[in-house]
């Protein structure tokens, strides 16, 4: 009784929701809320016995429960239930519909049937309802909605699959295959998908590819197709004919083997590959034409790598080796090679006319200026006044000791004036020298300002120029000598040279010399004796 009452309530609530005005859903209303809860409870309880797992029997829809909580409860039920329902549907599809399926309980059919009915009858209303449900913010209603949607999607898929699939083509398998192809994208998987028309080339490509993966892939595909072959004839799929596939299947394994052997050979030895290429020229040309740009690049790179590896293994040329002595390279090989090394010395200047001209110009200029690079003596400037050295008188003092002391006493007492010291004499000499210099300097100005000083000194008249002429510029001095030649002459009478003397004269000279010497020698001992 309770169960039926509850079911009735739920039905009533569901109906209420169905026929409610859309505008009512925009604003939250307590009636609709309670109706929704009741409806969801009813549907939940109706579905509970069907689920393979053992979910809680009732849906707790107290006002205290949140939308999230209610939804999670529904999820607990729906999660194992939905795949189960799907499987059931599939089974139904496979089995002829004429056979009565009494095993399935009514409620299972009910939602399916109800959905079918809804679809067939009132798709528009359902759609509107769905839209309304979608627009509302309540998640409880969305839960129903989602359930419906999922069931609808499955149905649609199944319908589509029914149209295309046959004993050969299984959509699921094709999907798997496509996924595999996407994984092995590089290698012409895309080509395979695109060029289904060029069957021969396609087959050839599969042969020539070096990738094992590709071959495996091809094998898998063909395996698939071979399996399908057993089932029966397939429908047309993209212009590929049956005989294209399955007549070549006999050749395929042979070709496959060749490809593998070729492939092995290719990997081991390039020469054999080339030989094979020459043998199977037509096939190779065709194959090369069919190569993609990437494949071509790969070929080139491979060839280059091989070449470089070979070169690296060989010994390099003598120019590339490090230190090479004459014995380790061929004769006169250094002459042929353009060697580059740093020169530490400046190259010798090429003497041209211009160079010499420039040098001569410089020399001339220097001479004209008088600018020479002579070593100049640094002028010694005395930093301080020269020390006055007391000159030690090395001659016998003229005064006696007593007189010295007498003079000392007299000086101290103040009786006698200070005596003339030696330094004064030097000063006198300096003074005379300075006066002479001043005279010369004054002569430059022609004595206009100063009179000629009179130097009183008793000097023997020397053989100097007679006149000091006064001229404007420069000062000219006459060459006429002061003394007459006979005055200059020193000597007596007839002067004869050594060579001119006669024997007697020579003897006379010697005698005179001896006499003079004797005389002087006599004087000396006498002098000494005096002391």
């Amino acid at each position, binding site marked *: 009784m309770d169960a039926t009452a509850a079911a009735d309530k739920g039905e009533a609530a569901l109906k209420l929701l169905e026929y409610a005005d859309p505008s009512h859903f925009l604003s939250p209303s307590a009636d609709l809320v309670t109706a929704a809860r009741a409806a969801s409870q009813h549907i939940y309880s109706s579905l509970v016995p069907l689920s393979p797992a053992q979910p809680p029997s009732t849906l707790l829809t107290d006002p205290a429960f949140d939308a999230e909580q209610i939804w999670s409860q529904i999820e607990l039920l729906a999660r194992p239930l939905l795949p189960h329902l799907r499987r059931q549907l599939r089974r139904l599809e496979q089995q002829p519909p004429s056979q009565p399926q009494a095993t399935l309980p009514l409620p299972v059919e009910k939602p399916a049937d109800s959905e079918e009915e809804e679809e067939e009858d009132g798709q528009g209303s359902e759609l509107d309802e769905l839209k309304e449900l979608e627009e509302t913010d309540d998640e409880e209603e969305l839960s129903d909605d989602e359930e419906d949607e999922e069931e609808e999607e499955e149905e649609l898929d199944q319908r589509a699959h029914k149209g295309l699939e046959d004993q050969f083509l299984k959509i699921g398998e094709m999907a798997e295959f496509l996924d595999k192809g996407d994984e092995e994208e590089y290698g012409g998987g895309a080509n395979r998908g695109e060029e289904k028309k060029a069957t021969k080339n396609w087959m050839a490509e599969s042969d020539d590819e070096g990738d094992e993966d590709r071959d495996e892939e091809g094998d898998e595909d063909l395996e698939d197709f071979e399996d399908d072959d057993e089932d029966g004839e397939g429908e047309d799929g993209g212009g590929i004919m049956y005989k294209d596939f399955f007549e070549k299947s006999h050749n395929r394994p042979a070709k496959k083997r060749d490809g593998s052997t070729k492939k092995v050979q290719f990997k081991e030895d390039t020469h054999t590959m080339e030989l094979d290429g020459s043998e199977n020229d037509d096939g190779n040309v065709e194959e090369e034409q069919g190569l993609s740009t990437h494949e071509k690049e790969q070929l080139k790179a491979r060839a280059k790598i091989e070449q470089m590896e070979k070169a690296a293994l060989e010994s390099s040329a003598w120019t590339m080796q490090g230190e090479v002595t004459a014995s380790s390279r061929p004769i006169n090989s250094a002459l042929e090679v353009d060697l580059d090394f740093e020169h530490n010395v400046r190259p010798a200047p090429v003497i041209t006319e211009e160079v010499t001209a420039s040098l001569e110009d410089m020399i001339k200029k220097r001479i004209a200026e008088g600018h020479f690079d002579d070593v100049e003596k640094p002028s010694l400037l005395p930093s301080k006044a020269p020390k006055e*050295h*007391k000159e*030690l*008188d*090395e*001659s*016998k*003092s003229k*005064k*006696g*000791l*007593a*007189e*010295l*002391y*007498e003079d000392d006493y007299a000086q101290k007492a103040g009786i006698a004036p200070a005596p003339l010291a030696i330094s004064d004499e030097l000063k006198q000499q300096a003074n005379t020298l300075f006066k002479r210099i001043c005279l010369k300097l004054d002569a430059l100005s022609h004595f206009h300002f100063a009179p000629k000083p009179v130097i009183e000194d008793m000097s023997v008249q020397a053989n100097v120029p007679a006149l000091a002429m006064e001229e404007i510029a420069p000062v000219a001095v006459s060459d006429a000598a002061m003394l007459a030649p006979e005055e200059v002459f020193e000597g007596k009478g007839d002067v004869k040279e050594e060579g001119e003397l006669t024997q007697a004269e020579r003897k006379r000279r010697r005698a005179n010399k001896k006499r003079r010497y004797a005389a002087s020698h006599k004087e000396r001992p006498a002098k000494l004796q005096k002391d």
Partner: protein
Amino acid sequence: MQVERATSAAAAGGSSDSEGMAVDHAAGPGAVEKPRFDPLMPSEMSGGRPQFRKVPVPPHRFAPLKRCWMEIYTPVYEHMKVDIRMNIKARRVELKTRQDTPDVSNLQKCADFVHAFMLGFDIADAVALLRLDDLYVDSFEIKDVKTLRGEHLSRAIGRLSGKGGKTKYAIENSTRTRIVIADTKIHILGSFVNIKVARDSLCSLILGSPAGKVYSKLRAVSARLAERY
């Protein structure tokens, strides 16, 4: 002294006793006046007998003595008032005090003067001894400084005097002394300090230092000496 005592006693006796006694008594009981003694004349010394000094004359100074006798005699006799005579037989110069010799030391000074002349000094230099008190004559031998023999000795002597005596004169002039180099004996006449300096230079020359080095030292020392005075 005796005469003075006699005179004082006579004076005391001559005068009234009371005066002298009075004075004595006035000074105090038993106080005696300090006796005043005038300094003795040299003639009165040693019992009024004259004093003598005898200076022997070496043979090589005989002729110079003969030559310069008047130069010796005049200052000694006239200025120092000391009797001087030459004992030719004994070959010595004898000096004697006179009555009017003013000072006791005159005799000694004259004796030193004559002795200096005998050593070889000039009259002009030796006369300084008469005039100044603090001049002395210092003598030493080369062998006192360093034992030299033969050529080394000759070279040392040569080093001492220098070429034409210039080293010797340099020392003399810078230190205000007079030096006589008599073979191996060296006599220096001058004041005490100067003698010392001259002696040091001569010793360094004997020991072998070159003249230039001695000159430089002399210059420094003489400058110092000159600054002092």
